[in-house]
């Protein structure tokens, strides 16, 4: 039975890889600078659409962490983002007008790029509104982390999505280009997360946070997943299954300790609740390109009309990774 099960998962993985291979035709090279990639470089992979305003800070943040090359899929931006990225010396860019939904929300494209360029590298797969925080990220570059993971032969590193929000209505303070989004959206929920284990893929399913609290209080099962595994020492046989929530082979999802200990982990600070959100939600609802009939966006749209305030008196103000560590949202594990 177990053999049968793992064989089925193997087929599933192969199917996803074949899908990625097929979808490669949808990607048109805009700027291919992948020949600059050197062995040992940590690479970042992202899909985006109309994020021009956020790009400068995004690139700067990850360059500071020590990301050496960005591999980005642009899904039909019309706000000048494509041109902006094209001018960056450390960005390789692919463009596509194809359906985001039909490429499993960009994962087929990313799986292809990972397969083609990620093999043998540590790869970080994030959205343009996700900012990776790991233990000692203020004093040690990402290479220190990946070297350390290498000595323990750890292949994947988890980082839970932490929704950040401003105090007051979400669209009240406009975000200006180049600004740190967490100057505005600096609040988060520290301890209302629920975890269950996905038996099939062995990953943890984490839900909760401000989105579950305000938009899904009556229907918690539909609340968005917050578990992510963004940092992986890529091998060409790996595949992301659903966003970066889980992957195959399953062993990569086992990023948690089951005997009471703590493995090391990070967080992805999520700058989603930042102006201009209302306009974005409208547009995404029009496009109908998101997960589960865009139910998440429908919930936002219903709530946003009443100018919701995600902030409450128990919200924590973000300081640094040590704070997240003390609150138990992430862990150093045995890295000291």
């Amino acid at each position: 039975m177990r053999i049968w099960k793992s064989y089925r998962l193997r087929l599933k993985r192969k199917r996803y890889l074949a899908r990625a291979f097929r979808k490669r035709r949808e990607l048109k090279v805009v700027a291919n600078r992948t020949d600059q990639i050197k062995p040992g470089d940590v690479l970042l992979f992202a899909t985006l659409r109309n994020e021009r305003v956020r790009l400068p800070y995004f690139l700067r943040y990850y360059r500071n962490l020590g990301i050496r090359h960005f591999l980005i899929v642009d899904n039909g931006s019309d706000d000048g983002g494509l041109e902006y990225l094209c001018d960056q010396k450390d960005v390789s860019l692919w463009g596509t007008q194809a359906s985001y939904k039909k490429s499993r929300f960009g994962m087929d494209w990313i799986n292809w790029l990972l397969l083609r360029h990620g093999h043998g590298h540590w790869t970080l797969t994030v959205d343009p509104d996700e900012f990776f925080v790991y233990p000692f990220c203020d004093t040690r570059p990402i290479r220190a982390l990946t070297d350390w993971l290498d000595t323990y032969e750890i292949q994947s590193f988890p980082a839970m999505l932490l929704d950040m929000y401003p105090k007051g209505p979400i669209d009240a303070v406009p975000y200006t280009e180049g600004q740190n989004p967490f100057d505005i959206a600096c609040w988060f929920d520290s301890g209302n997360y629920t975890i269950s284990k996905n038996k099939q893929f062995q990953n943890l399913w984490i839900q909760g946070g401000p989105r579950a609290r305000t938009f899904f209080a009556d229907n918690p099962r539909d609340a968005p997943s917050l578990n992510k595994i963004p940092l992986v020492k890529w091998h060409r046989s790996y595949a992301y299954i659903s966003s970066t929530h889980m992957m195959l082979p399953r062993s990569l999802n086992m990023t948690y300790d089951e005997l009471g200990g703590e493995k090391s982990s990070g967080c992805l600070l999520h700058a989603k609740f930042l102006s201009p959100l209302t306009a974005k939600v409208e547009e995404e609802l029009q496009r109908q390109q998101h997960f589960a009939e865009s139910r998440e966006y429908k919930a936002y749209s219903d709530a946003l009309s009443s100018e919701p305030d995600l902030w409450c008196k128990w919200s924590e103000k973000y300081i640094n990774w040590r704070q997240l560590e003390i609150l138990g949202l992430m862990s150093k594990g045995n890295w000291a």
Partner: protein
Amino acid sequence: MTVGFIMMCHTALDRAAQVARHWAKSGAPVVIHVDRRVGQHDYTAMNRALADLENVSFSRRFKCEWGTFSLVEAAQVASEQMLEQHASVRHVFLASGSCLPLRPVKELVDYLDARPYTDFIESVTTADVTWTVGGMDFERFTLRFPFSWKRQRGMFDRYVALQRRLGLKRKIPDGLVPHLGSQWWCLTRQTLSAILQDPDRAGYDKYFRRVWIPDESYFQTLARLYATSIESRSLTLSKFDFQGKPHIFYDDHLQLLRRSDCFVARKIWPQANRLYQAFLAPRSEGETQSEPNPTKIDRLFSKAVERRLKGRPGLFMQSRYPLQDRENGKTSAPYSIFQGFSDLFENFDGWLAKYVGARVHGHLFGPMRTEFSGGETVFSGCLSDSAALRDYNPRAFLTSLIWNSRGERQCFMFSPRDTQAINWFTATDPNAQISVISGAWAVPLFRSTQNFSILRREAARLQQIETDHLAILRSMYVKARVRIWTMADFIENPMEPLQTIIDEISPRATRRLAEAPRMVDLTGFGQFLQNLKNQGMLPRLMGDFPVGDDPRPNSSRRGRPYLVK
């Protein structure tokens, strides 16, 4: 007299070269061994980088594989070269390419000058070693290890198992007492040459060739034969974790390393620019004769290992999700559950909050909403009062609540009307203090104005739920501090149990309870129970309430507090 350094390098040769240059310029000769698996290109680059220094030389290269004799061979050859070429060397210091000197060479020389006959080598008998990984200590010396642990793990394990099964043993050469220790040593010329020029060396080498991880035992064992005074500790600060991997130092360890007063530290992350800059910069040669004192660093690393192995009790998070019974603490702090109290007493939570320094909630698991203290809609950690969210994962709700409010004891009310999903969890949690007045759920029914048939059905339902809960609380698996009274017993003398519970919650409070909580008026309760019986339902859990002999309501009727003698 001076000290000579042997450096064993296999990666980050540029860093090793920097360190070698530092030592050589300070007047200490250096012999470098570079692993033969390092490419010729990198090797010649290093050669060239150090060509201008005449007291730096390179020794014959061996292909070094972890856990094999090749590492010992490399050290032997480099030692011979050191002793031959540099007559002024009295102590030989074995270091690695990822070592970093923390104090000037002068201070090390002075330190060794003060102890000219002392060998610094960690050397412990196998019986006293606690740090070996995989449980192999003495067997390292009595079994054969022809297979590589890293590359041929399957064969390695199977061959070990086979030898154990057949009881095969190797004979340890006469006169040798196996000792283990850190492979980074500092030996005197006298001891080292005695080991290298031993007439029996060929025999010893042959024996150690098949010992597992001989670099941790060869010199450590043989030094015991010749050394006049062994200090069984390494001068190199090198910490290993529970998997036998060395802890790594980064830029942010700078102050910690400075204050440790150790001579050499290992292992340094090659890109730790600040560390290399700080410690390789020319410094005023202090006259400090302080002893190395790595306690702070020891504590840092042992805490890290403990975090990895034990974790934080009561925390469930993305990288700590223990299986049932492997939690090492189901919750993070003690808490109290009161069942039936809020039914029997008016405003019990208000009364309790007055007497215990704790946060007193209402029915946290109430069917309609979560009743946080003070009627708040959100609580610590942004826990929501939505019953749907809570019931989606009640255990996560409870553990989060306790975790979020660390430092403040949590108390809450419970009843058979509430969500019952956490009953097994709380009953088996040593942090829980569960006090039950059984049958008190009937009091609200008794005071209700509903149709009696509805009350009867409700009473039957609640009695069944409480019976199930009590069965859990009386099972052999209970770890919580459980107290159960029938309602009849409790109202007989409420102050004594209340005092016991409160003393347990805040043991330091010396104040006796001055005031009992107001009990609801129970006139006619006996008749109510009799009515239930007459309707065919048997109320069992509340104890004995004869008809007509109603419990004497306390203070409430007199309108003034009940005083305890």
